């Protein structure tokens, strides 16, 4: 049971490039989330998903896209990278409602856009 895994661990992008951050969970969680963490700040929600085929915007969705074709995977797409997207990105998952609302986090992807 690996929990939540993310790839890559680190990435440097040039302005205008695109990339996909991968996230996979093996806990059969319905709910998955993408956050970004900027220095000295808490985590901000980018997008979330309540199940395969269903996604919704969080607090800071601009510049990102997501898809959820399977329960296990929730990739985050950056189409035109900008310096403001330099951050650490965390993927998380959680059980369905009825359980405590704790989320399980991956180890993060550190992205630098120059």
């Amino acid at each position, binding site marked *: 049971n690996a929990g*939540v895994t993310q790839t890559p661990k680190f990435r440097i992008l040039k302005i205008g490039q695109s990339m996909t951050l991968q996230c996979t969970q093996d806990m059969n969680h319905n*709910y998955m*989330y993408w956050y970004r963490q900027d220095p*000295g*700040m*808490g*985590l*901000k*929600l980018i997008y*979330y*998903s*309540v199940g395969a085929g269903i996604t*919704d915007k*969080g607090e800071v969705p601009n510049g990102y896209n997501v898809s959820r074709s399977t329960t296990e995977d929730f990739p985050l797409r950056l189409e035109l990278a900008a310096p403001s997207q330099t951050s650490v990105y*965390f993927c*998380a998952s*959680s059980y369905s*409602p*009825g359980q*405590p*609302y*704790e*989320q*399980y*986090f*991956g*180890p*993060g992807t550190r992205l630098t856009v120059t």
Partner: protein
Amino acid sequence: AQSVTQLDSHVSVSEGTPVLLRCNYSSSYSPSLFWYVQHPNKGLQLLLKYTSAATLVKGINGFEAEFKKSETSFHLTKPSAHMSDAAEYFCVVSDRRDTGTASKLTFGTGTRLQVTL
């Protein structure tokens, strides 16, 4: 609407002395409250959670927190700090009215705990 305020951005203690990390919250409904810990270059790990059961919550590694509704606080404590406790700690609130939808967590800005010899 919900919010979290962590009253100290940085706390320094000596090894073996008590730890107190302060957190105040605001929530329109009965909240669930969490403390997460983040060690350098690592993901977040759940320390403990409050979800309307006992107001004194015990977590991993000797940490505990007390939910005080009258003070809207959820402070994290540990009787005796260890060097391995040095990390960033986040207080988090979730509006339990979110039953049936994805639970949206609101994070505090974090408290960096330094433990010295």
